[in-house]
């Protein structure tokens, strides 16, 4: 115990003197949490729209007014023909063309049916998808509004209508920030555990100080605990700063118990620290450690479900995500923050992360040798 205390004292002295690590611990979560949720915005605004209006009727005017009033679109031009509109798309000035045929109003009233033509620039997939969907949604609504105008009087509608009411549970306004901030916070804690710890251990190898430790009576588990505990604490500090920033800037208050978040993070950090420690036993220089950790953490984050849904991944990547601790942490963060999940709900995740941590740490300890 005494040895560990002195190792920790030494470690904290070094960390507190290292301005970069301090900046990483304090500034990075603040800056990232301010910038990233704004950048990782899935709502598409300012879709450039041009309308080819061949009708110039009251109805076409109404439709145009409805679309521009939605706020999603920026009306850039009224080209004379579809051909001119296409030129605007080619020169990247427009994203969507809505073409209204001549006699739109007349045919709509007389034949009770009419066709509109929407073409979308699919270079930016997300924008095309959502832009197209918005236009279609507005047209559908326009359609139902004029229908209700026409059908009057009968006491019971003779057209059967299925009315759909949608409620978004846990995040009623679909505020993506509430959903992104816990995820990004999980990534930050992962970086602290998996990255900074690996670099720190390899630094001792690089400077040769590990040699001096190896000839001392310090036992293997003393050295390992002396390395892991400081970064475990730093990870917890990052989590605390992150939760505070989430509250102060985004007003996010976890629905569930904050204690549960800390409990899970405590176990989770042991698991990612194991990863960092494992990387350090395979690297000789800080550069190697950096690239090796970067490789794993990159894959873990890509497959974590932070940016894309795991459910839409192919089966074989889904299998990889079962062994990805980051996935579980992001899920649990969202469960507790958004849904208010309790201990029994997160228990399966907790056990899986503990299992992964056990494997990584045992592997790392077996691979760490004081003698070559």
């Amino acid at each position, binding site marked *: 115990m*005494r*040895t560990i205390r*002195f*190792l920790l004292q*030494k470690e904290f*002295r*070094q960390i507190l*003197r*290292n301005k970069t690590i301090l900046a990483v611990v304090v500034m990075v979560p603040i800056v990232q949490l301010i910038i990233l949720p704004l950048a990782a915005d899935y709502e598409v605004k300012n879709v450039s729209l041009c309308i080819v209006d061949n009708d110039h009727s009251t109805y076409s005017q109404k439709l145009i007014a409805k679309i521009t009033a939605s706020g999603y679109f920026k009306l850039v031009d009224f080209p004379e023909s579809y051909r001119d509109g296409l030129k605007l798309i080619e020169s990247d000035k427009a994203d969507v063309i809505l073409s209204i045929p001549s006699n739109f109003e007349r045919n709509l009233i007389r034949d009770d049916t009419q066709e509109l033509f929407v073409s979308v620039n699919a270079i930016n997939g997300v924008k095309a998808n959502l832009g197209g969907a918005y236009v279609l949604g507005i047209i559908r609504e326009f359609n139902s509004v004029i229908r209700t105008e026409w059908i009057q009087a009968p006491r019971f509608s003779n057209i059967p209508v299925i009315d759909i009411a949608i409620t978004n549970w846990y995040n009623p306004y679909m505020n993506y920030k509430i959903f992104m901030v816990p995820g990004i916070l999980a990534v930050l804690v992962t970086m602290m555990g998996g990255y900074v710890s690996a670099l720190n251990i390899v630094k001792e190898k690089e*400077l*040769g*100080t590990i*040699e*001096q*430790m*190896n*000839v*001392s*009576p*310090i036992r293997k588990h003393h050295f390992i605990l002396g390395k892991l505990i400081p970064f475990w604490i730093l990870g917890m500090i990052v989590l605390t700063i992150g939760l505070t920033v989430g509250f102060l800037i985004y007003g996010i208050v976890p629905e569930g118990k904050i204690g549960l978040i800390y409990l899970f993070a405590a176990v989770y950090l042991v698991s990612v620290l194991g990863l960092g420690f494992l990387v350090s036993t395979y690297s000789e220089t800080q550069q190697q450690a950096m690239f090796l950790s970067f490789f794993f953490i990159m894959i873990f984050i890509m497959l974590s479900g932070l940016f894309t849904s795991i459910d839409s991944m192919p089966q074989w990547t889904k299998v990889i995500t079962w062994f990805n601790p980051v996935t579980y942490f992001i899920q649990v963060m969202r469960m507790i923050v958004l849904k208010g999940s309790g201990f029994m709900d997160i228990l399966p995740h907790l056990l899986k992360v503990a299992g992964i941590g056990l494997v990584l740490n045992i592997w790392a300890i077996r691979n760490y040798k*004081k*003698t*070559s």
Partner: protein
Amino acid sequence: MSIVEVNNITKTYNKGTVLATDSISFSVSEGELFGLIGPDGAGKTSIFRILTTLLLADSGTATVNGWDVVNDYSTIRNNIGYMPGKFSLYQDLSVEENLEFFATIFGTTIAENYHLIKDIYVQLEPFKDRRAGKLSGGMKQKLALCCALIHKPVVLFLDEPTTGVDPVSRKEFWNMLKRLKEQGITIIVSTPYMDEANLCDRIALMQNGKIMSIETPENIIKNYKKELWAVASPNMHSLLTDLREFELTESCYAFGDSLHLSFKEKNEDNRSKTLAFLGSRNHSSLEMNRINPGIEDCFISLMQQ
């Protein structure tokens, strides 16, 4: 009584392709200042790392104070001091913090063994709040020595402690070693500098993983049976090539401002024949004197055998 015993230690690297030490054996007596002398790559550091339990030998056995380097490694680690060739203290901790840290991990305190390091530490004391990384080369070595000594080791292993240190600090450093020896600590030191060999009680001359000779420095010089001459002229370069072509020459090499020359056979007229030969090669204002050999001359002569 010998405190360090090395028996037929062989160590190879890269799956046996690089031979670091080739069946080396030697022993060091208690209280001795023992030197491993040899050029870079001779295998000195490998021996140190095997004796300090950092490296496992391929074959052979070694003991330190009766403890086996493989089985009793933890006892050895508790009782030896090791100063690696590369400065390996915490550069971001201060002088005092480093010393304190190494004292505590060995379960002792600075006060307890202060008498051992006192002579050295007084020189460091003015800088005790300075970060170790900011010290000068000589100061770093002194601090490293203090840290290796603070737990009163039975044997002190110093791997090239004076490499990259200025001549004055080197001299100071060896004086410190002498004083430590007087306190009864066995010291094993390696160095590529031949002039430091004279300061050891006994030395092992190493080359290519083998020990060529283990003797006191005096005996090594005594065993040098040949006559050695120092030859100098204004044109040293052509003098060297000419002397190497000379039929009586056994070896000739540059040594400071003169050439050291030895002959194949002892002869009264060696000197006059040499001067006559050099005269025929148009050398003028020649100087040629008998000299006593140094360790380096012995080393070169052993290397050629």
